[in-house]
């Protein structure tokens, strides 16, 4: 179980892995996530399922090496197994009667919207996709997504590819040029989702965002992933991970996400030290 059968680097420190788990592959739907643990003393972290293949019995995960767990995950190669993998968790994306949709993927978020765009396309939904990243080297899955959308737009902070600037500039332009969207779907860094939501609110475009807060069990038990949505406390693991972007209290989520930043750094630094000494599994 959980054997990595394919590993493809997509960008510096961003990897795609295809993992065998027929049970999860059979049930996974766009928008859902898994929780994994890399080693015996490891922590549990959530990752969105970016694709699945029911026939092959595999799921695809795309992750960026940020903390200790994702860095260790990045060290696993084809043939290695992930220690624990649990899912599919969370509610699937609601893909019914979407009309015309604009999907915004920021950085790694592009990987997470991939299965949604594919599914929307299958349902006959007209989709425009905006992909954003800091620079060209961080643009991922461009070729993979293209066949499933009507238009694909790219924005980079430094202008190394596509529009120079933010995804919101592009989105604003598209709307003001007369594109009528019935829904926006934004997945990416919290700040990007916040800015997109603020923009679409002005134009009255209903917006779905996907939250990925600190989480332990993923079944509603710990309450660690709670966030305020329209003044109500909701749990991202069971009520989400997708919420109405116009109702999410992003400032609060941004603060909560930083809760363990200090410890995360300690763990990663120690791990890097161990790696230098050749103790990879520490």
């Amino acid at each position, binding site marked *: 179980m959980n054997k990595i059968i394919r590993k493809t680097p997509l960008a510096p420190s961003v990897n795609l892995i295809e993992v065998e788990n027929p*049970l*999860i592959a059979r*049930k996974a739907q766009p928008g859902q996530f898994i929780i994994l*643990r890399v080693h015996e*003393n*490891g*922590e*549990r972290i959530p990752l969105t399922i970016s694709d699945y293949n029911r026939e092959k019995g595999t799921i695809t995960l795309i992750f960026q090496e940020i903390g*200790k*767990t994702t860095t260790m995950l990045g060290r696993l190669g084809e043939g290695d197994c992930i*220690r*624990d*993998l*649990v*899912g*599919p*968790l969370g509610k699937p994306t609601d893909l019914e009667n979407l009309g015309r949709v604009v999907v915004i993927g920021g950085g790694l978020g592009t990987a997470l919207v991939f299965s949604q765009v594919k599914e929307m396309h299958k349902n006959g939904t007209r989709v425009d996709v905006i992909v954003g990243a800091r620079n060209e080297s961080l643009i991922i899955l461009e070729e993979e997504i293209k066949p499933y959308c009507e238009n694909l737009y790219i924005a980079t902070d430094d202008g190394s590819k596509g529009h120079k600037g933010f995804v919101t500039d592009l989105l604003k332009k598209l709307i003001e040029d007369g594109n009528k969207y019935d829904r926006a779907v934004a997945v990416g860094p919290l700040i990007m989702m916040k800015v997109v939501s603020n923009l679409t609110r002005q134009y009255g475009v209903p917006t779905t965002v996907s939250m990925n807060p600190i989480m*332990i*069990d*993923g*079944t*509603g*038990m*710990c*309450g*660690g992933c*709670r*966030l*305020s949505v329209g003044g109500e*406390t909701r749990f991202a693991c*069971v009520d989400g991970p997708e919420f109405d972007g116009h109702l999410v209290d992003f400032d*609060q989520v941004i*603060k*909560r996400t*930083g*809760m*363990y930043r200090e*410890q*995360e750094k*300690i*763990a990663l630094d*120690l791990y890097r030290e161990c790696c230098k000494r050749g103790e990879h599994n520490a």
Partner: protein
Amino acid sequence: MPEQKRKANLAKKKVPMPEQEPRVRARNFEEVAMGYTREQALEEARRCLRCKEPHCVEGCPVNVQIPDFIKFIEEEKFLEAYKKIKETNSLPAVCGRVCPQENQCEKLCLRGKKSEPVAIGRLERFVADYAASLPPAEVGEECLSGSLNKGKVAVIGSGPSGVTCAGDLTKMGYRVTMFEAFHTPGGVLMYGIPEFRLPKDVVQREIDNVKKLGVDVQTNMVIGKILSIDELFEQGYNAVYIGTGAGLPIFLRLPGENLNGVMSANEFLTRVNLMKAYKFPEYDTPVKIGRRVAVVGGGNVAMDAARSALRLGAEKVYIVYRRSEQEMPARREEVHHAREEGIEFKLLTNPVTIIGDDNGWVKGMECVEMELGEPDASGRRRPVVKQGSEHVIDVETVIMALGTTPNPLIAKTTGGLELTRFGGIVADETTGRTKRPGVFAGGDIVTGSATVILAMGAGKKAAVAINEHIRGKHE
């Protein structure tokens, strides 16, 4: 030994249990109570009166034959004593440590009328630990996997209820698969109860025992997500037992409850117990505890959280409880232990607002004082706010230990079940039968949060009913 020559020990008090010094133990995660020595166990066993009609057994939800096992102890037949307990209780080392004996077996002990009751829990623990110290072959736990041909049963949840049900069904000849959502089986015994009260290797041992019996344990399986109950039946299971517990934390919906530094006891204890955050960075999961900590609630979980916070280095830990000590649902021993360790009790106190600093972290909790009025529906006197009693406690961490509600995950994805107002599953108390044929449920998912031993009792009754259900169907 001939009955007439036996001289009972008439000491009024239980043989005291050796414990770590409060000041020392408040800074480590080692077990607080160290267990009886052989001599102490023999001495305490002699306090049993061997009543002709022993009431203690009536007080035990799983019917442990208490006088019989105590008699074996007195005769120094410790292994026999162990086997006697195991006839009805699959988790003696756990029950000996965390059962609320004061409200069960020991409450009905005749010795308790005029002095302290026999320390049944401590004796049970002694016997279980004795058996664990022997080579497994000597204890002779049987492996039944060769002869499990009466049918297939799926047990969902590997906490006390599930383990008991799975163990009993295996002994009856069923092939049992136990599904666990976490990466480690044991449920609340693993994530909820701290190491210093219930060492995790003790739980592991009990899980290993059911595995040895032949129970197949599958971790990382969230039933209701990865497989539905319908699919389990399609896979050939003849019956399903739902023992998923009451895992959802209750929050008070106070202003400031989502500030950094506010946690449910579930989150805090899971980080500490299951993920071993107290060993960070040796273990990867962190936990952050302020200099001053408030734990809101008055049950065992509140005591566990408060004492864990102290062990993680907090200087000041408060229990904030809205009623008085008499109404506290925690075991008396835990309250006593907490006090000894220096936990401060703010009784008749209720939080109203959690106050944050500019960075979104907790810096205080505003509370009001309470007075007890007339009894409410729960029979406890209802706390009423004292006017003008608002005051602020300076704390950096707030842990909410207000109880839990059943996890609706399975109920939501399973047709044909009837649900309670609280999201639990409606099941017959004596059989665990739900509205849906072949589906049984028991433990906290049915009753709401209760005790380990009640959950075990429910698992036991359900095992009997499942056997009858399958036999009735196939023979």
